Structure formats: C-alpha cells, structure tokens
C-alpha cells in the first residue's frame, strides 16, 4: 500500500526516517545515504566521528532480507536521496551488499526472492513491487564494498552530494500492510489444560467441552 503525500516541501515527511534501525541521521536534505554493511563505522564511532557528516543517513546492514528492506524503505521515503554508497565489509554468508546490488539490478521474482543475490536467504517480504521499482529508479548505487576509511567515505559523500537533484516525484511511503482478518473456526481440540478445558492450536482458542 502506498501513501502519496501531497505536500512534502522538504522532500520527506517528518519524522524521517520512517523505519527504525541501527543508524545515524545526518542531514536529511542531503542527496546521499551510506550503508556500511557489517562495519560499525559511524554508528559506534562516537566522538571519533568526522567533523562534517554530509550524508542524509549512515547505517549498518547485516542481513540480506530485513536489513535490505529497511534501507529501501528509508531511502525512497526521502526524494533528496539519489545515491546510496555501499561501504564496509560484507556480512559473511548473508552478503547484504551483494544483495542490495542484485536487488537494484534485477528486482525480485514472484516469491519475493531477490534475483541474482548470493546471500543466504535473500527475500523481500514487507515491500510491494512498486517500492522496489521506485528504489531502482530513484537511487544510483555506488559500490564501495570493502571500504572502511571514514574520511574517504565522507569525500565520496561530498562528491555525490554535488551531483544530486531531488527525485521528481513525491516521497514513497511504505506502509505496513494490515493483516487480512480471517474468520477463526474452532476445530477439534488438540491441547488440553485439564478440567475439560481444551485449546485448538490452529485457532488459538480455549473452550470447555461437555
């Protein structure tokens, strides 16, 4: 489900980012986002942070499914972001960097599997196909996997900030899909509490017999 806002003068809707995670927000008006994969470069740098943090957001991404989803959701909700720098070391086995590149290049199949990813379980489960297509159109990925030099990353941020123009559409807000309400039917009890009380574990309902 998509909410196309009508008046996003800043290019994003407060509060931004909409999805929580292990990240630092820099300047939301900037044109660059930075993923540091398994390297806790900016998040835990504390007082060692570079004096100028020019990206919109800096964060780790350790998983090839939920972590990638969070990045996509937060990036496409801010039209100022046009570049995503993928830096830091890969999370072994999970390969979220490889998966981000594959998602951007190939998208997903009918089951939600990210086509071409070498990660362990590369599936998108909480984003609609429109969100993926928007991610592919809105941002360019800068493949710097392996780069952990924070000053070098900041230099890249400055360079790509100069090139960035806001994406010419409204921010794309990924709204959590509501579960379809289903009628829960009582079946045969298969879990007993004693005293003629039973529970049907498919329906998760407790009842009394006799």
């Amino acid at each position, binding site marked *: 489900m998509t909410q196309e806002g009508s008046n996003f003068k800043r290019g994003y809707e407060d509060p931004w980012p909409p999805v*929580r995670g*292990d990240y630092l927000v820099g300047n939301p008006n900037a044109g660059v986002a930075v993923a540091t994969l398994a390297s806790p470069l900016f998040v835990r740098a504390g007082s060692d942070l570079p004096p100028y943090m020019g990206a919109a957001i800096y964060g780790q991404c350790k998983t090839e499914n*939920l972590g990638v989803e969070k990045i996509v959701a937060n990036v496409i909700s801010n039209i100022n972001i046009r570049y995503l720098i993928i830096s830091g070391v890969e999370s072994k086995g999970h390969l979220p960097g490889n998966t981000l590149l594959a998602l951007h290049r190939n998208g997903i199949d009918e089951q939600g*599997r990210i086509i071409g990813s070498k990660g*362990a379980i590369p599936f998108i*489960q909480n984003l609609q196909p429109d969100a993926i297509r928007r991610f592919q159109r809105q941002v360019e990925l800068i493949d710097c996997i392996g780069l952990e030099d924070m000053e070098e990353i900041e230099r890249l941020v400055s360079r790509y900030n100069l090139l960035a123009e806001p994406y010419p559409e409204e921010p794309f807000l990924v709204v959590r899909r509501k579960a379809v309400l289903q009628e829960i039917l009582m079946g045969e009890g298969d879990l007993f509490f004693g005293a003629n009380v039973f529970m049907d574990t498919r329906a998760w309902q407790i009842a009394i017999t006799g």
Partner: protein
Amino acid sequence: MFRFKNRQSIVNVAGVKFGGQPGELATVLCGTIFYQGHRIVENEEIGLFDHAAAERLVARQAELSEDTGCPAVLHIYARTHQAFLRYLDFAEEVWGGPFIIDSADSDTRARAASTVSELGYGDRAIYNSISLATGEAEAQAVSESEIDSAILLAYNPGEPGVEGALRILETGGSVLEKGLIPLARELGIVNLLIDPGVVPMGSGAGASLRFSVVAKARLGLPVGSGIHNAVSAWPWLCKKEIGIRKCCDAAAAAMQLLSAGDYLLYGPIENSDFIFPAAALADILVAEAVRDLDIHPGEGHPLNRLV
C-alpha cells in the same frame, strides 16, 4: 501449563534429551561461543582466541547445568573452516557433551560436517541448520556425513507467520520444492529440532511463541528458539544499562519456555549466569502446573533438584 494430545517425541543427542510434554524434561540450554564480535576471539578468520577465558566460560556453563539440572549444549560459531578446526580442538579438550556447529557461511558449515564425521564426533554434533538457504552442495555434505541431529530453521520470508513456518517444514510452501522435514530425513537426520527463526520485534518475533505450541501439537517434535535474537535486535533496549538488558533476556527466555519450548539458543555463553536460573525457575513452575495432568518430571529435573 498444558498437555499435548499428540505424542511428543524425545530425542537423545549424546545423552542430552530434548522434547516431551511440557514439564517432563528440563530445558536444554545452548550457549554460543566464538560468535561474531565475541571479545575472547582475537582473529575470527583463523580462529585465534583467549584459551583460558574460553575454558572458564565453558566450565561455568557446565557448572550451572550441574547445579540447576538444565542440560547444556556448546554452540560453536565459526566464521571460517580454519577457525572451526581450532575451536573443535578446544571443544575436544574441555567439553564432553553435545555441540552445535554453526556458521553464516554454508561452505564452512558443510566442511564442519565432514570434519566432525572424520574425527568421530558425528553423534555429538547438531547441525545448525537445515533451512531455505541449504543448497545442493551443503545438502550433499550433510548427507555424506555421520551427523544425525540437526536444527530445522522454519524461517519462511515468502510467507511470514506461524502458518508459513509450518508450511516450509511440511511441504516447502511457495519457496521450496519439498518441506524441510522430508528433506532432513532424506539427508539422514534422525534427531530433528525445530526452530522458527526468530525475527526482530516489530517484524513478528512474538509469532515464535505461538509457533512452538502449534508446531509441537502438529508435529510432535522438540521445538526451541533463539528468542534472545529478538531482545538483542531491539534498538530501544540497546541503549539501556546492562542489568535491564539481562532482565529482558531472562524474561524472553522464560516466555519461550512457558510457550512449550524444549530448548533455547540463549545467545552469548556469558549469559549462562542468569539464563540457567531463569530457565530452571520456568521449568519448576511449568512442572508444578502440569503435575495434575499426569506428567512427571525426571530425577534430574530442576523441580526435584532445587526445591
């Protein structure tokens, strides 16, 4: 606090029993050593670590197991096969019980399966895990190994929730050609341990609690989880002091046991100091709750040891 109508199987891995009716057996507690970011690891690529510190951690878990009656399993995580070889050498020296072999890298897992078989530890090893991510090469390595115990990770990103997790176990759902249970049987796995694959809170962590009850009712197999992962992935809690984080970890563990959990992948082995007492407490309360339902805990159960 309940009794399952279906028979609940009990599996025995190197003398440690998993499963049964809630209240029948003590919870099996699996502490992880050499995990990503573990302070005692000096080089995770080649497996250099502080031997004395590691030995203290394993001994402490064993001591708490002996004290409470909750059996312990050593959960060995390795980034590479080279590291795994060093860790296995260490485990051979200090630990005589079952151990879990685990890595994020499928090649490392597969080679570990071969190694433990060659060294004659196949009957003590629990393979973690057979899942959606298990490819042909890994499946072949497990099949050719002597390992007969495995955790089946029921994580189903194509269909999140309890029903989806059951489907990937039984039929493979929309993402696999066959279910993980028939696949594991084909690979020679006899002792099946079910794990829903706990996702972060906000993404459905709570479903793992209901899953354990439903999976035991439907499958009759031992079920556990790494509910600790939901706690450690909660950004709000990460900013709190250590005592608060421990309380939440212990509470989550107890909730999983109240929901019919048979084993816990309780996270860092350092947590043994508070997880073993919390699990023993939960085991005692559950065993007392089902006493009138014709369920009788064994001699070593915390109920018969600590109260």
